[in-house]
């Protein structure tokens, strides 16, 4: 199979040569805000926004500089410094893939920074919040811009840390603290996979930079080690992107402030797994390999699981979280299909970044007006009192269900078409998932904005301030037109092809009138219709009804937590008890014995230190004699 991946060339100078500024700005912001503490309380949030915007400007400039080069020269490695001399040179890789991510992260990130000014206005720790947000942006940019797996891993851990800090931002709530811990622990499993995967890469290829790997691995090459690497990296991707079987943390992560859910747990961080798979795609997930098949299966399973969970949630943020899982499942499915799928996976990732952030921020705007109420059964008929929020949310809604001509329509349909072509069974499951998406998203919109008022007595819903609604408007504009721009004419496919492979001449033509395309539309229409019957026309009970067996199944997150608890937590607890027992009896005995031995010898040796100058002089004399003797002795042999 011919590879169309362009060679990575070294680059200095220009904006690309200074691409590290992208990371440096938000990092500096975080440093200033965290170290100067309360001195920055008054203007800290503005600094945070400014740093994020500065980073965005650099990203835009770098983007334009990059497209100034010919397609074959659009992969630029920028060397920064020797991180571990002889082993890891730290550098950045600016190519179509990484710059797409950088634009999304800094662009959507900046909008969410601005929105947070309003959303967090009354929080006494607003400065710290912006510090963490900046930290997140810096780490995420390092993740996508690093030209090697070590840098990627540092960024990977950095976003994990930021995510942990932000989920637990309201740590006075026990639920938030627990959720943060859960996210951290579950991610540890995935991170372990990534780490071991890196070890295997190092032992197999002796390098961790993408450039060197690209030179060593010929297209289509597979063997046992590479399959192992692929599966280990997939485990890492599952953790970060909340894919089965490591999905359980994402729903709980909604305990964090809503802008966090929008930025980290919808638009950017959770897509890191997709980035990892696509970035490693040419190496470890070649088309038709076992690892690629595993990726598609994980993706298809998660897209259904997320959609089913989304159907049963009354908490608006958890509903959206289920939908995020599901949409990332689509991306994963696309990412496992080779170059043809990559463009749609990344395209869906970008449009999803817009419409999901749009809806999360919209949900935040609703909560802002409803005294932080998250139960949709206490909403209803909000479209009249919150017109801007409603319109923007509705555009995001249309985009996600794949309403023709909106963003999500093009990218999701692309994934489905490609999947049906390559993996028919999984492809048709994705069609089914689209239908379910139509149902649960409509349910959310109808319960929130239509029907009867079911507000709590002290609720006085009102539209949010402009600082919050302007980002919503910009995001909804992206949700409207971005998909058409990226997919029609294969723009994104051709842009990405130097980085991920794929023949530019093969750019897929968008054809909506295929069997899967029409079936998707029909199923979505059915889903919307059912939702209208149940939640639009009929009255929604203010208290959650008992529901069927299936509903309970979905409400309990498909028993994912129960499964984890009985399969891992309890045996894990037994294992730790056992380990502690052995540790106390066996290992501690050994260690303590050793320590006592060293301490004892230290105590005895200490007596040499008498404090008398004459003893010291004697020891010097003896030392001199020993030295002389040794030299003479060595000389004679």
């Amino acid at each position, binding site marked *: 199979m011919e590879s169309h991946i362009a060679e990575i060339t070294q680059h200095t100078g220009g904006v690309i040569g200074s691409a590290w500024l992208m990371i440096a700005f938000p990092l500096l912001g975080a440093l200033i805000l965290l170290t100067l503490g309360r001195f920055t309380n008054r203007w800290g949030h503005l600094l945070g926004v400014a740093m994020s915007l500065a980073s965005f400007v650099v990203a835009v400039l770098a983007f334009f500089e990059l497209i100034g080069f010919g397609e074959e020269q659009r992969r630029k490695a920028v060397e920064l*410094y*020797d991180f571990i*001399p*002889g082993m890891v040179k730290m550098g950045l890789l600016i190519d179509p893939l990484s710059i797409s991510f950088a634009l999304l992260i800094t662009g959507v990130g900046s909008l969410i920074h601005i929105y947070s000014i309003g959303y967090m206005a009354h929080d006494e720790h607003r400065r710290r919040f912006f510090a963490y947000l900046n930290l997140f942006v810096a780490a995420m940019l390092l993740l996508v811009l690093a030209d090697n797996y070590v840098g990627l891993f540092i960024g990977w851990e950095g976003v994990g840390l930021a995510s942990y800090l932000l989920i637990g931002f309201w740590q006075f709530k026990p639920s938030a603290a627990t959720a943060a811990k859960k996210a951290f622990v579950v991610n540890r499993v995935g991170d372990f996979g990534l780490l071991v995967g890196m070890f295997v890469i190092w032992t197999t290829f002796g390098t961790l930079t993408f450039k060197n790997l690209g030179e060593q691995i010929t297209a289509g090459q597979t063997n046992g080690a590479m399959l192992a690497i692929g599966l280990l990296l997939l485990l890492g991707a599952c953790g970060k992107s909340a894919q089965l079987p490591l999905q359980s943390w994402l729903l709980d992560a909604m305990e964090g402030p809503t802008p966090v859910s929008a930025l980290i747990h919808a638009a950017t961080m959770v897509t890191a797994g997709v980035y990892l798979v696509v970035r490693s795609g040419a190496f470890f997930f070649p088309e038709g390999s076992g690892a690629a098949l595993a990726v598609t299966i994980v993706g298809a399973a998660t897209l259904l699981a997320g959609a089913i969970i989304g159907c049963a949630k009354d908490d608006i943020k958890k509903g959206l979280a289920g939908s995020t899982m599901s949409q990332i499942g689509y991306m994963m499915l696309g990412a496992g299909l080779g170059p043809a799928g990559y463009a749609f996976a990344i395209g869906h990732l970008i449009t999803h970044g817009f419409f999901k952030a749009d809806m999360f921020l919209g949900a935040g705007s609703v909560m802002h007006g409803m005294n932080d109420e998250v139960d949709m059964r206490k909403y209803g008929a909000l479209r009249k009192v919150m017109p801007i929020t409603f319109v923007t949310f509705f555009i995001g809604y249309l985009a996600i269900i794949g309403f023709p001509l909106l963003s999500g329509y093009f990218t999701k349909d692309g994934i489905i078409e490609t999947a049906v072509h390559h993996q028919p069974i999984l492809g048709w499951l994705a069609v089914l998932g689209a239908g379910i998406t139509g149902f649960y998203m409509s349910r959310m919109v109808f319960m929130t904005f239509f029907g009867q008022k079911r507000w709590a007595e002290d609720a006085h819903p009102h539209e949010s301030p402009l600082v919050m609604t302007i980002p919503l408007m910009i995001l909804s504009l992206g949700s409207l037109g971005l998909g058409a721009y990226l997919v029609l004419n294969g723009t994104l496919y051709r842009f990405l092809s130097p980085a991920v492979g794929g023949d530019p001449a093969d750019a897929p033509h968008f054809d909506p009138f295929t069997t899967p395309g029409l079936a998707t539309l029909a199923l979505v229409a059915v889903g919307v219709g059912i939702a209208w019957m149940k939640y639009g026309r009929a009255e929604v009970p203010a208290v959650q009804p008992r529901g069927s067996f299936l509903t309970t199944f979905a409400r309990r997150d498909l028993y994912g937590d129960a499964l984890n608890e009985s399969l891992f937590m309890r045996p894990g607890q037994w294992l730790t008890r056992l380990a502690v027992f052995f540790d106390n009896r066996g290992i501690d005995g050994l260690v303590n014995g050793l*320590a006592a031995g*060293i*301490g004892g*010898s*230290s*105590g005895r*040796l*200490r007596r*040499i*230190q008498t*404090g008398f*100058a004459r*003893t*010291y*002089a004697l*020891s*010097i004399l*003896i*030392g*001199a004699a*020993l*030295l*002389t003797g*040794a*030299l*003479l002795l*060595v*000389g*004679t042999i």
Partner: protein
Amino acid sequence: MNDVIQAPTIEYGTLAPLLVVFGAACIGVLIEAFAPRYLRKSFHVPLTLLSLAGAFALVLVQTLRGQVSTTPSAMGAVAVDGPSLFIWGVILILSFVCVLLINDEGHFVASAASVPGSSDEEEAEAHDNGTGHTEVYPLVLFAVGGMLLFPAAHDLLMMFVALEVMSLPLYLLCGLARRRRLLSQEASMKYFLLGAFSSAFFLYGTAMIYGFAGTVSLPGINQAMAAGNTLDPLLLIGFAMLGVGLLFKIGAAPFQAWKPDVYQGAPTPITALMASGTLVAAFGAVLRVFWVGLGNLDWNWRPVIWGVAALTMVVGSILAITQTEIKRMLAYSSIAHAGFLLVGVLATYGSAEQNAVSLKAILFYLAVYGITTVGAFAVLTLVRDPGGEAGHLSRWAGLGKRAPVLSGVFAFFLLAFAGIPLTSGFFGKYAVFAAALNSGTQPGDSMGGWMAGLVVVGVVASAIAAFFYVRVIVLMFFNEPAADGPAVAAPSMGTVAVIAVSLLVTVGVGLYPESVLGVANDAASSLFIR
């Protein structure tokens, strides 16, 4: 005899940093003689700082002009080569920050000559405004001048002179602590006696080597060895004596006994100067003697230094465990670090490239260890009991609750000493051990396996050392504070600057080692003038 005596040629430009420091020291003496007592400090402080900064600038100019001399200066007495300039730069930076610490009030006694507790002393205290002896400043400058000359000396006599110029002021300075006078005087006395003892060894060794080689110039000695019998007892005994003098200064076992006593008794800013500047200077001299002077003898000295290095690492880290006094603990830590550095000295073997790599590693280690040390001692000056600095470890219990920032900074320094990754200490140790392992693979080295063995000893010693560093951290953060625990003094601007700079360097180099490694590499690649 109608020969005209030839005036020696002196390269004033090349030697300018030395001359600036010595000149300022002489002016300092004049200030002591002529300025009224209350004005002296305001003369001394700017003079001292400016001369150190000026000397540093001159070093910088020489380095940046890229015309590092390749021949010795001053008729072959001083070699201002790449490594010398690097060491000079490091010593000047370290002494500059140490002077900022010295400048703080309350470290030095008002009248060192009075009997502790006598009425003379009380009277002197009464007239003193916290400054104490202002002679401290010229003494420090002389000591720094000696430190600069010591590693750059190109013949053994010049080296001996430098050794004495460096040591004599330090003997005095050790006895000037304001608190715990008896301990300070004892330290001064011990340091003087033992220092004199070891200097005698050095001189005796010089004489014997002269007897063998007929010259005291380092390259001359090396050439004599190439031509003559390297098994001549005169040479070997002479070298052993010389080694005693040098190893004493770096505090290698079994010549380490003075270190804890002196470090504990001396005023803490002076301890900082000795633990950083003197160590850097002494290692420069060790490298020069072993590499330039004894290059042809490395079959003989390497096994012996192997033993010394191993013993030093083990003794330093094991004895540190049972210390209850924090300055003594840091003294033993300094001994252990001297052992790690000796591993690097051993690695200067084989090809020029290998020489440069290990030299780079040592230079880097010296620079980052020095600055971290100064930072750690600066923290010590701030934690005070009514009777002076809170030296006993038990007094530090729970300090993390009382002064979280200061304790955090100190914990970070300790982690850097332990060599935890992402601190500068990690890359120092990594570079030295990697160079040592690599030297074992040099063709024709029969010590290959032994070098690996030494690295294993080093790693085990590091692990033991990590124990007592972390123990202090545990003590500070996980123990309940004592009810009458020590107070944390409000730091002066100078002390804050010292701690901030040390912290910044320790963190910065830990994240971006190439910054200092690159400079060390440039300095090391030109090697010592042979």
